[in-house]
């Protein structure tokens, strides 16, 4: 299997990818509107300022081709955008270069990057660029009187009738259930590490089990909300926001009980333009560029000083700031997804979740 993969990626590498050379940077990103934010807010201004040409290619999940490139010894990517979870995994497997965090620039008021970035955004091989989150979203039409305002309301089908939609999987749901059960965000993972905590989370989910439609693709929850099939969903904030904006739908987001995760830059082991990649990282994580990227997509900058600089959503007069997961007011009772916990317990808890679902 591995050999076949290596062979294919080597062939693809020879045929398709541009060769690394001086004054050039090969960036591997996600495409779509997220990739577009990288082009507009990062790559274009970076080219204008440094003269280094940025060539962008897209992948469904850049971590996969990255792994294949390094294992085949044919690394054409200099810098890639990956999810935090993948970054840690790739780093543990020795597939990433270490990133020299001293290149990061200070905030305008002189705050050092270490203090300015949120926890976990700067690690050995990974620098965070944006934060997305799972949020409680509801269809405003279905709640003419009282509006849901906290995780507990999601589990209260008596006062807030209608079906719910949740992601089919253990991750996010167990944490959310505990928060709805009154556990403060900072104690969730400690509790979930114990058998009692897991039992408690499942017991809470059991309360609404008959009323839940489980989603698998990120595009499902906005669709279910729009159809009136469910009245509330626990879903990715970017999907909800984009659907509400593009199709003018009455979706509201409750930020209380959000669980956020990060995406960011990694440099593959054996990249050919490591220096330019560092330059690019320093440039793109500067507060003003982080803020600019957030105007294209509702993913928040991981730097505290960047939040205030975010203007209106590109091409509209809707202020983007309050729609970002990292907006100060949205961060009360927010939970940082604990990657170590999930790498450890993914298999076990998902098996139990599937068994629970099937009962």
């Amino acid at each position: 299997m591995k050999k076949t993969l290596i062979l294919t990626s080597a062939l693809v590498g020879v045929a398709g990818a541009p060769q690394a050379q001086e004054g050039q940077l090969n960036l591997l990103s996600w495409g779509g509107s997220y990739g577009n934010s990288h082009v507009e807010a990062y790559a274009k201004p970076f080219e204008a300022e440094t003269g280094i040409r940025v060539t962008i290619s897209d992948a469904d999940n850049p971590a996969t081709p990255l792994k294949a490139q390094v294992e085949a010894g044919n690394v054409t990517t200099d810098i890639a955008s990956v999810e935090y979870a993948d970054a840690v995994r790739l780093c543990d497997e020795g597939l990433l270069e270490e990133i020299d965090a001293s290149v990061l620039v200070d905030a305008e008021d002189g705050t050092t990057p270490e203090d300015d970035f949120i926890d976990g955004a700067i690690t050995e091989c990974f620098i965070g660029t944006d934060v997305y989150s799972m949020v409680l979203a509801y269809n405003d039409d279905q709640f003419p009187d009282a509006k849901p305002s906290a995780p507990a309301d999601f589990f209260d089908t008596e006062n807030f009738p209608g079906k719910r939609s949740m992601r089919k999987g253990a991750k996010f749901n167990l944490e959310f259930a505990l928060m709805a059960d009154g556990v403060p965000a900072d104690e969730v993972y400690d509790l979930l590490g114990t058998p009692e905590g897991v039992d408690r989370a499942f017991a809470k989910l059991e309360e609404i089990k008959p009323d839940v439609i489980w989603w698998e693709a990120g595009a499902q929850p906005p669709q279910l909300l729009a159809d009136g099939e469910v009245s509330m969903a626990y879903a990715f904030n970017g999907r909800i926001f984009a659907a509400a904006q593009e199709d003018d739908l009455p979706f509201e987001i409750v930020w209380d009980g959000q669980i956020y995760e990060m995406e960011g830059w990694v440099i593959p082991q054996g990249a050919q333009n490591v220096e330019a990649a560092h330059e690019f990282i320093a440039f793109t994580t500067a507060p003003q560029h982080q803020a600019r990227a957030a105007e294209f997509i509702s993913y928040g900058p991981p730097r505290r000083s960047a939040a205030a600089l975010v203007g209106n959503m590109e091409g509209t007069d809707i202020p983007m700031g309050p729609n970002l997961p990292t907006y100060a007011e949205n961060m009360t009772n927010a939970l940082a997804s604990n990657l170590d916990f999930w790498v450890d317990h993914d298999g076990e808890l998902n098996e139990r979740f599937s068994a629970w679902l099937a009962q």
Partner: protein
Amino acid sequence: MSQALDPHAATVAKAAGVEPGPRLTTADGRPLTRALARSSRKARRRAFLLVLPLLLFILITFVVPIGQMLQRSVKNDGFSANMPQISAWFAENPRGTEPDEAAWAALAADLQQAARDRTIGIVGTRINYDMAGTRSLFTSAGRQARNGLEPPYRDAILDIDARWESPALWSIMREASSAYTANFYLAALDRTRNTQGDIVMAPSERQVYIMLFQRTFVMSAVITFMTFLLGFPVAHLLATLPLRKSNLLMIFVLLPFWTSLLVRTTSWMVLLQQQGVINDILVWLGIIGTGQRLQMIYNQTGTIIAMTHILLPFMILPLYSVMRTINPSYVRAARSLGATSWTAFRRIYFPQTLPGLGAGALLVFILAVGYYITPALVGGSSGQLISNMIAMHMMQTLNWSMAAALAALLLASVLLLYWVYDRLVGIDNLKLG
């Protein structure tokens, strides 16, 4: 063997062997047998060269990947390849030996080396399959071991984390110290090993696979029966209508066949959901109240409806091709001899459709057993099939060995079914069109 395949060559050889009379030769004086053998060898070689591309294609894209996948289900060297010293210690000391200082020293050395090589994540992932919560145990120990550990190693490692002493952990490391293991198959059958190495049932809240296998087979059988029930009359109509009308009908059968699977699944969602077309019509007609809208999707009902529709052509087409060849005069003869229309159908017509029915049923059942995308989209919690678990292990938990074990079991049960079918009906009776 090759000569025996060619009847002429065989005759010539026999003739030459039995009758030692004058040797038959060709015009240029060569023995006839040799000349014949040579020309047939040439023909065979040409035929082989013609099928060679297909053979290579099947080998590279089908046999090799499946073989590698099956190998993964019994082989995982994530631990043994990266932790050589402790694996050697396990090989030398039988089960039940308390880990001595030599074992701890071997463990410490391996941890350091794996941390420097950055393979510690792979090692931790392997152990984590069998014991949740141990991946971070390995990676954090690795981070601290990278700077070097001082003897006595037992105390040094236990200082990092007291969980290293757990007998369960040592038992699992012993299991993992050989690259080949049957543990993934045990897990796929809801079984596990205790610290003594005996096979026991997994804790009840994690028993899921056997139930899912059962459900997959029961639902596939129901879907196969539904396609038979709906497809048989349609196929009959197709076979007996005049050509012009049957062609039009054929297009209606094939049109959904040519439509994207996702589109068809999504349209069922539009039709069946609680705020969907069918419920709206029922409410509008006053048959049900707004509060009593039927739940027809995101459960087993939805999966059966959508999959029956999607797999219907696979039943209709083989049935149709067999029915077209059935001579209508047989049934007429039966009727003229006094059989009722039911008897004539049951005793004369239906038995003749069996080859098509067998082919259709086998096709639909095997496709249904491995179906993934439709149950994932419309199955809800009760419509999950085993393929959804395989997908989860492939894409989410990245436990490919587990996915391979589940897939191998699925493959084996389908082959078993095929064998049973061959014994009962006979595979020669299969007609695919």
